[in-house]
């Protein structure tokens, strides 16, 4: 299965914030949308970073005033992205290996088109195995009368 298989059951609106917004504002969005990470885009919509709950916690340890900091000072700027045609298995491996919980998806023109979470990936993997099992189970059920 490919990354696009996860995107196909998502609304397709990517939740973003700007680097100049405050962490306070960013937390507001995270809470309101019930998500674990925000994609940070510049004025032309180009991806410049990712801000995860973990980034905020890590910064808060050293910096009591974290809420007032601009997102730009807290976000991770080296963002690893995936393509819709990337194999899910490989992406899953990369995410677990590098401990990424979120992965932004860009199309071949570099446009931001979505984000997947480790939860999405694990669910897709589980569904793949369940599909095999459910097929067998349906066949077994068919054989009983």
């Amino acid at each position: 299965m490919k990354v696009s298989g996860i995107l196909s059951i998502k609304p397709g609106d990517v939740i973003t914030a700007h680097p100049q917004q405050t962490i306070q504002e960013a937390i507001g969005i995270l809470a309101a949308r019930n998500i674990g990470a925000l994609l940070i885009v510049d004025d032309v919509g180009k991806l410049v970073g990712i801000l995860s709950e973990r980034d905020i916690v890590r910064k808060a340890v050293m910096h009591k005033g974290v809420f007032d900091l601009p997102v730009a000072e807290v976000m991770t700027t080296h963002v690893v992205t995936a393509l819709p045609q990337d194999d899910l298995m490989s992406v899953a491996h990369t995410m677990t290996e590098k401990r990424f919980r979120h992965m932004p998806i860009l199309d071949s023109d570099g446009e931001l088109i979505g984000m997947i979470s480790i939860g999405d990936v694990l669910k897709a993997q589980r569904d793949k195995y369940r599909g095999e099992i459910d097929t067998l189970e349906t066949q077994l059920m068919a054989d009983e009368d």
Partner: protein
Amino acid sequence: MSEVGTAENPLRVAIIGAGPAGFYAAEHLFKQKMAVQVDMYDRLPTPFGLVRNGVAPDHQKIKSVTAVFDRTAKKPGFRFFGNVELGRDVSVDDLRDHYHQIVYTTGAQTDRALNVPGADLEGHHPATEFVAWYNGHPDFRDLQFDLSQEKVAVIGIGNVAMDVARILCRTPAELAQTDIADYALEALSKSNVKEVYVLGRRGPAQAAFTTPEIKELGEMEDTDTFTISDEVELDSLSEASLAESADRGAMRKVEIIQSYAQNQSTGKSRKLFVRFLVSPVELYGDEHGHVKAMKLVHNELYKTDAGSLRPRATERTEVIEVGLVFRSIGYRGVPLSGVPFNDSWGVILNDNGRVIHPDTKEPVTGEYTAGWVKRGPSGVIGTNKPDSVATVDLMMADLQNGRYLHPTHPEAEAIASLIAERQPQFFSYADWQKLDELETAKGAELGRPRLKFTCVEDMLAAVGKA
């Protein structure tokens, strides 16, 4: 009026598409602790979607799943309206007038395009059409495939490509044991095909086909199967990724692929080559506009940021002679009139199964989707079960929260008379069962699992509707 889901006011659901996703959704709906009525529609008189018209005829065993779907169809409250197409005989507005909830499970009705020069030449076909043809799908029964050609290419190495390659390579005797359409059996019995090339753009470790399918390719009666040593030797990236994945199934698959490189010709009539790391870049035609050859570029693999191995063209090219080409590079959903569509992935625009408005991304009240038209063309029959269950669970949650349609004519008779008016020749489940009996009886006479009706008029006549 009383609450929806009671005996006086049962929950009325329309399911559009009688494939696995539709049946699994119906099954889960009937498990709910409330009164439910399900009307299932299909544009064909026959139910079961790709189980009838996609699954390869030499894979009869898997088709037994339909016995489970039959059981769902026996539930009180279930009705089948076959030969009724959404968009032709009924509209989404009609459905909204008659049901509390609507589920679209229309599958993937077309295929992905191959954008190379020469793609419009005669003799190049989508595998979707060939598959529907040999399975006796009424819309495709009149297609012609030039089986007088000796050399055939199949582009793509998914399980559908495996099906197509097998059907091209089976002997008439092997095919005669199946429920393959009678005209296809006849055409394939006269086939002149000698060599089949199945073309993968990446390497053995990235092959989309599954292990039993590649194994089966090596076990055909009159076909020798080969791979090419250079192409099946793993490159270092593939080797590393396979080792990291610790996926024993994938390793076994690679071993089988590699073992075919050792095969020697045993003098069987046909040869099947599974090729790797090659992409078609152009189809060449003869003076009649018929494909005669294909240019392939050899690929190497590179690793994307996210860790996936993708093909990249090298300088090396090759021309192979082929007179018939099937592209088997994936199915694709088609839009339904009045239902938001996500053109990027060829699915109904949805959020985990809730149909959503294109602008607001808010759910469209009472409309849902499941199966291939929800998540795209991937997964086996059973994959649709958790998928449909997840959608039905959302339907139940929405119902609880009062988010459902308020039809003006919720009575079961109202929609039945509308359909009788619009499509008097609709098929009930009883009609289908009669047809099913006829098909199996006719098949039994010939020692075959069934002999399919492949033409809607004949189906209608057989059950006295013509």
